[in-house]
């Protein structure tokens, strides 16, 4: 809306308005001059295109998804959890399943368990309180907990 007005004002400054109907001769601009002016107008219009300014910060203009929206499933969350656990440096070369116990099967101590829970907090972006964290001793429990918090259910 505002862009159209700016374009209109930019155009009116560059293109000459045709003279009144009385005279039979209408002033026309040559093709080259017209193309140059059109190009300038388009550049001015693009420069002041306000679709991509959010709160005064310039960003790429927002595109809305036009296909089937991806629904988060429990398997997605399980994959993310296993990826984070594998990335933990004490557990890179150990075979893990969803059922393996952190302390008894994988040989971590309680401080390592706290670090794993903190890695989960960083990955999923929400705080896990200590009372809940000490009960999450298998990857399966973590997946179940995050699905409860994120409202992902089968």
């Amino acid at each position: 809306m505002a862009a159209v007005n700016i374009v209109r004002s930019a155009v009116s400054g560059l293109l000459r308005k045709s003279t009144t109907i009385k005279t039979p001769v209408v002033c026309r601009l040559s093709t080259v001059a017209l193309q140059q002016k059109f190009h300038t107008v388009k550049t001015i219009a693009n420069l002041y295109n306000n679709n991509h300014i959010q709160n005064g910060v310039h960003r790429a203009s927002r595109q809305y998804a036009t296909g089937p929206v991806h629904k988060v499933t429990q398997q997605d969350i399980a994959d993310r959890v296993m990826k984070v656990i594998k990335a933990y440096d004490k557990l890179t070369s150990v075979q893990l399943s969803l059922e393996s116990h952190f302390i008894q099967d994988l040989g971590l101590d309680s401080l390592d368990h706290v670090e794993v829970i903190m890695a989960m907090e960083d990955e999923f972006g929400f705080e896990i309180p200590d009372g809940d964290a000490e009960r999450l001793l298998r990857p399966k429990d973590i997946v179940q907990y995050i699905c409860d918090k994120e409202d992902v259910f089968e």
Partner: protein
Amino acid sequence: MAARQAIQVGTKTVRPVLSLNEAEARSRVLSLYKAWYRQIPYIVKDYDIPKSEEQCRAKLKELFLKNKDVKDVRVIDLLVIKGQMELRETVNIWKQKGHVMVYFKPTEEPKPKDFLSKFFSGQE
């Protein structure tokens, strides 16, 4: 009968410092660990210490594991309180780079252990 009386003589009930039982003390320790762990990237940035985040985390783990065999709940509470005081001083930048580097013992030389090193350093 005598054994039970002997055991009762060996223990006594005392007033707690902060936590009432082992579970509460454990949760205090773990939250202190979490707070320090989250603060480490900011410590490395603010104090500009010549250690990486990995080394800081290893040192944090080492200092916590040094006290892992403490069983008395009051001692655990006091260690946690001291840890919280250190954390507060570090977070508010009341310390300086040297105070933070003390944890890494930069100028300590390892004590000689085998015969030849002891001989050279003058200890028998």
